[in-house]
């Protein structure tokens, strides 16, 4: 990794943790992270802020029908003892269950972090 490209990665870390990197750029950064301890540490540091942002919003009660619908599906699946993993979950670091989406980078973004 050249100094220049490392600086490019560093420049993108803020946008990355905010989810504001376009998909391809995020993927490029995610390929860099496993080999760069300083970028990983910086992402971990900045993710404290995005975690906090998620908790800062005004609290609104969900409708009871949401839980009813969710638990109906969950109870059916529990009864069938089916616990399917998503198609790409196996390729994902453990700890982040939702890495199995069609558009993987956003939910992949923290995967490396949890794999440390």
């Amino acid at each position, binding site marked *: 990794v050249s100094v220049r490209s490392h600086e490019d990665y560093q*420049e993108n*870390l*803020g*946008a990355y*943790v*905010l*989810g*504001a*990197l*376009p998909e391809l750029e995020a993927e490029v950064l995610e390929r860099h992270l496993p080999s760069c301890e300083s970028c990983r540490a910086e992402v971990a540091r*900045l993710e*404290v*802020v*995005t*975690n*906090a*942002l*998620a*908790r*800062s*919003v*005004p*609290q*609104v*009660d*969900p*409708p009871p*029908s*949401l*839980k009813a*619908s*969710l*638990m109906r599906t*969950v*109870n059916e*699946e*529990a009864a069938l*003892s089916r*616990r*399917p*993993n*998503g198609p790409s*979950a196996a390729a*994902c670091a*453990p*700890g*982040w*269950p*939702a*890495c*199995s*989406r069609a*558009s993987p980078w*956003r*939910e992949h*973004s*923290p995967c490396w*972090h*949890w794999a*440390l």
Partner: protein
Amino acid sequence: MALVQRGDARAFEAVYDRHGAAAFSLAYRISGNRAAAEDIVQEAFLSVWRSAVRYQPERGNLRSWLLSVVHNRAIDWLRRSVSQDRGRVDAEGIEERKAAPELTDAEAFRREEAQTVRTAMERLPADQLRVVELAYFGGFTHSQIADMLGMPLGTVKGRMRLALDKMRDGLGEAVA
């Protein structure tokens, strides 16, 4: 969560009871649409249920993990929407939950934590707060934000980074 990993639906229900409101609040804040927020939360929790075996508690906080899943789903929803302005919520449009007469310790802590975060946000310069909100709650990419605000991409990246650094310092250990 260990019980959820073993397929215990009642344990999963307890997880929802504890974190569902925070998840819905975040989804609603981003989507500005109750029906969409319900779909987002349902999708997110089902994905957690179906792959809970991969969750390793020693590697992180369950609430942060769940909310990151919800955030990602909500941003995807925004980007799938024809117009990103559709249904955008604004502060006065949100009916915040009334404070319960007797808060549990956990609820009181969360309210205090949320207030700490909001205070840190309010201390940001307006131009930095704007880019953070457009990115995190608006689902816009850095280049979209640059176009929108008529500024170079490097400036947007720099403001994002400055804002995050300032907030990180402002939050201190309160939410670490």
